[in-house]
């Protein structure tokens, strides 16, 4: 674990860059997290994905299944990966301030 500056705040992240306290997340934090994923400019489509993940997590305390994410946002898998090249788990969930997804790949 280490402390880094994200969105003007000192925030603890794990070895993969996921923030440890979801309550510290805000849009400025998301923009800085996006930069760590190679996304320098968050478009409306980026925010649509991130906000869906964020809302789902706050309601269910877990990330949605990928198919649900695609159906609810209207993005195909390829479009999700075009937006977040690391994918929905390692990329979009990180930017949305969710805990690191379980498993690997």
């Amino acid at each position, binding site marked *: 674990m280490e402390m880094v500056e994200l969105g003007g705040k000192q925030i603890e992240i794990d070895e993969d860059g996921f923030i440890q306290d979801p309550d510290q997340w805000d849009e400025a934090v998301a923009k800085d997290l996006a930069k760590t994923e190679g996304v320098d400019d968050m478009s409306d489509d980026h925010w649509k994905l991130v906000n869906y993940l964020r809302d789902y997590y706050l309601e269910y305390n877990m990330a949605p*299944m990928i198919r649900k994410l695609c159906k609810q946002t209207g993005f*195909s*898998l*390829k479009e999700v990966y075009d937006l977040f090249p690391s994918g929905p*788990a390692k990329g979009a969930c990180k930017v949305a301030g969710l805990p690191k*997804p*379980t*498993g*690997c790949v």
Partner: protein
Amino acid sequence: MDLITVSRQEDLKFSVQLRDHVMTTDFSVGEGGKDGGPSPVEYLGVAAGACLATMVQAYCDARGYSDGDVAVNLTLEMVENPNRIGAIVMDVDLPNDVPESDREKLKAMALRMPVPATLKDGPRVDIEMF
């Protein structure tokens, strides 16, 4: 079925030989490898996607659907305890002239194709150590 031989190159990087074909498998840097090739788990996803793509393309070719080719995008949803694939999520692009009635039929057929069907029912895994 021809013999598949998996032999070590270095560290976690292995060669996979089947007939005259040679593939490489490794783990990502984050998982202790050097990302010299897809991981074994990723190859399982490759197998599922390739199986689906080729079988669906064959179906479309047989029926003369030629306005575009079949393409598959897929990803793996991982779960823990034990670490494994929880879901293989696949998007299949079909030729534009495939009618709606055949799209539904293809979706049902896809689950009966060799790799998806194998994954669905789970094969016997028989291991001896020498």
